[in-house]
């Protein structure tokens, strides 16, 4: 195809390719094979599927799609038979593949204990619709609209589902009109900062410069976050289309995608997608015969969290240590190699393509007054239905944790939800009426962040979590400015001491002062937000700090230095199971002899507690108190 191609020609070609693929086989099998799916065993499921289909001489197409977001049900296998709706199965193993083939591929009975429901408008008698389930019903999928639905390696499927229509619409408008449309949508930066996208674009558009750059920030370094990975792996074109639209609006001719090296599948998908765009005349010179030129390169990150900060990211692209610099000048005025540059994150770009396809007013109809549209969250931690979710801004945390997340794992008590990763804070369970939007989370002392949402139960210690986040920020501090470099180290020192039971009452004041200094004095957002986990945990769980410091007690029974395990002599039945499983041979005992844990040898791993049969429940975990037990094993009944 020549480079002077109109959108209609591209669309026709893609439609034909899509129809050919749809009609290629009577049965299509769709497997979720993103990094999550593969970690759950999707590769083995696909291998068995192929073997079984071959052995039974069944003709079927197997498509690997990205992630629909139901990570807790992975691996997911969907079956589409001609004229029937897509039927979805979850927690599929190589051993259970035959059941699906016998039941629904050879036979016509979709029922199975793995059956999740049907997908799409069509229905099957007696089968629920998957998107009516409590997990999916409250969700509105815009940035993730194609995730799990398109083959990420096939541009035709993206175009057939409306892809690149937004670009075509944009190219028919003036750049100023495109910025106006994006402003109208109310879209704000989804990397966490929340700056209005249209405003940021306009600043770059207005900046003088004979060359301009746009950058996609895919350096998703927040521990606990995987929204960007999921979107890039599942639907790379939605992000790339957004970048093209932005480049046109701002007058940029070159773009970079800065993607962290820990996401190899995302990088491969981007490379494939860019190659297909070249083939279709969607990137390069004279895109869609419009006279608009845009060139795109991928830069792999090398493992530095601070490179998520925009000035540090640009330093890294230029080949330097990724250290941030003061703003102003803002990247829009002087960015990459001194040229006006714009950086948006993956999810922002993914929303842009949808906004230009369906309009700013449509997008702005979701969300709250100040936080428009939807937001993706990586829902993880101690919650039943872990996964990637996308909800309208303003959805309550309670709804996210209990309706979508299915409540707390193992029926434990909900303690807090942590948003924004190491830059965010803890929101205690009694404030779960708060809503997920920029204003409401900031008012609670946390931040929206890029979308990490880690749920904590009663066994998660707030002090230990603050220490965990400081371990991260301290090791990721680039060292350029003193408040962050020295302050995070001091804060970590105090928190480590408190968790080890060596805290002193003055530590609380010292921590508060350090938090203020680091927050106000740091050069970039890494240091500026690093105190948030400490501040919010001190505010909401002050009693836990006090218990650690004053009583040498960890109320959540989590901090290893402050807990002890004992065998309750009244309950021990001398079965030897705990002793055999103890990794450090710390349990003494014998036949008909009550077991005793040698406290000096115990490494507090908790294996004994897990292994002790539930009918005995003889292992006790305590903090700040002791259990009266014999020093040496004694015969049952004598203790």
């Amino acid at each position, binding site marked *: 195809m020549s480079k002077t191609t109109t959108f209609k020609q591209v669309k026709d070609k893609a439609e034909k390719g899509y129809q050919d693929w749809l009609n290629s086989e009577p049965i299509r099998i769709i497997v979720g094979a993103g*990094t*999550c799916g*593969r*970690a*759950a065993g999707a590769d083995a499921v696909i291998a068995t599927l192929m073997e079984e289909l071959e052995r039974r001489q069944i003709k079927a197409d197997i498509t690997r799609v990205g992630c629909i977001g139901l*990570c*807790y049900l*992975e691996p997911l296998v969907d079956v589409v038979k001609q004229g029937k709706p897509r039927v979805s199965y979850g927690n599929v193993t190589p051993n259970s593949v035959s059941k699906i083939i016998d039941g629904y591929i050879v036979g016509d009975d979709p029922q199975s204990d793995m059956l999740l429901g049907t997908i799409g408008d069509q229905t099957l008698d007696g089968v629920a619709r998957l998107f009516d389930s409590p997990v999916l019903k409250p969700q509105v999928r815009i940035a993730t609209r194609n995730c799990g639905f398109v083959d990420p390696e096939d541009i035709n499927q993206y175009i057939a589902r409306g892809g690149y229509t937004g670009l075509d619409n944009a190219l028919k408008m003036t750049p100023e009109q495109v910025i106006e449309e994006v402003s109208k949508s109310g879209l704000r930066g989804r990397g966490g900062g929340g700056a209005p996208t249209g405003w940021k674009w306009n600043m770059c558009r207005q900046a003088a410069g004979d060359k301009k750059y746009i950058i996609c920030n895919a350096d*998703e*370094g*927040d*521990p*606990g*976050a*995987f929204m*960007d*990975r999921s979107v890039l792996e599942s639907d790379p074109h939605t992000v790339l289309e957004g970048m093209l639209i932005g480049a046109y609006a701002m007058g940029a001719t070159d773009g970079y995608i800065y993607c962290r*090296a*820990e*996401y*190899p599948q995302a990088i491969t998908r981007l490379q494939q997608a860019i190659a297909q765009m070249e083939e279709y005349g969607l990137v390069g010179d004279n895109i869609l015969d419009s006279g608009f030129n845009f060139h795109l390169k991928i*830069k*792999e*990150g*090398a*493992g*530095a*969290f601070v490179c998520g900060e925009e000035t540090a990211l640009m330093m*890294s*692209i*230029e*080949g*330097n*240590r*990724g*250290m941030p610099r003061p703003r102003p000048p803002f990247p829009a005025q002087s960015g990459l190699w001194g040229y006006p540059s714009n950086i948006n994150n993956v999810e922002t770009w993914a929303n842009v393509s949808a906004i230009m396809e369906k309009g700013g007013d449509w997008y702005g109809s979701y969300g709250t007054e100040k936080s428009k549209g939807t937001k993706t969250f*990586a*829902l*993880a*931690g*101690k919650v039943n239905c*872990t*996964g*990637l979710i996308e909800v309208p801004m303003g959805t309550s945390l309670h709804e996210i944790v209990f309706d979508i997340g299915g409540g707390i794992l193992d029926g434990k008590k909900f303690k807090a939800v*942590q948003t924004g990763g190491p830059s965010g804070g803890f929101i205690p369970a009694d404030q779960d009426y708060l809503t997920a939007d920029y204003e409401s989370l900031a008012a609670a002392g946390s931040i929206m962040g890029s979308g*990490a949402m*880690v749920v*904590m139960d009663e066994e*998660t210690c707030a002090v230990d*979590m603050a220490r*965990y*986040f400081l371990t*991260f920020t301290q090791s*990721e501090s*680039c060292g350029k400015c003193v408040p962050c470099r020295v302050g995070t180290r001091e804060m970590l020192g105090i928190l480590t001491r408190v968790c080890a039971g060596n805290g002193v009452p003055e530590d609380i004041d010292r921590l508060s002062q350090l938090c203020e200094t680091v927050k106000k004095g740091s050069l970039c957002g890494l240091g500026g937000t690093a105190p948030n986990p400490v501040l919010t945990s001190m505010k909401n769980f002050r009693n836990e700090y006090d218990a650690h410091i004053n009583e040498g007690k960890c109320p959540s029974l989590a901090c290893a230095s402050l807990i002890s395990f004992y065998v309750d002599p009244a309950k021990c039945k001398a079965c030897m199971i705990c002793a055999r499983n103890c*990794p450090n041979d710390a349990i003494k005992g014998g036949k008909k002899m009550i077991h005793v844990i040698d406290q000096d040898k115990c*490494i507090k*791993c*908790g*294996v004994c507690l897990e292994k002790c049969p539930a009918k005995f429940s003889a292992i006790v975990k305590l903090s700040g108190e002791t259990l009266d037990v014999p020093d040496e094993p004694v015969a049952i009944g004598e203790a």
Partner: protein
Amino acid sequence: MADDVDVIRRGEILSGYSISRSNIIPILQAVQAEYGYLSKESIEAIAAYLHMSVSEVYGVSTFYAQFKFVPVGKKLIRLCRGTACHVRGVSRVLDEASKLLGIKDGETTEDMEYSLETIACFGSCALAPVMVVDQTVHGKVAPDEVKNILDKD
């Protein structure tokens, strides 16, 4: 002899990139992908190729967690220390792996078979705790499964 082979191989990698400072990270990544780590000789060759000082190349490379300056084992065992993995008990999985291999986080076994390291987050949080053997991701790993995974891979 081995040195000559290295010089030629390194030269081939370098010649794939234009002489521009912005290529330093891609070059460091390509060299490490070939050798598993960045030797002093490699750093010197890269510096000469990019017309940078050796200390500047060290300066850039030591900033990023990805780069290693000592040889690593044949198998790389990585454990995720992300928030979700922390909450779901990855430290016990790390203890177990450490005990089985006889090395600590960041170390390599004497026979150069295994290296053990932790990384910030793999982004597979829904499957926490996560353990990665070379490129194979294992999700929901319980401490007592570590031995099986190490034996199998």
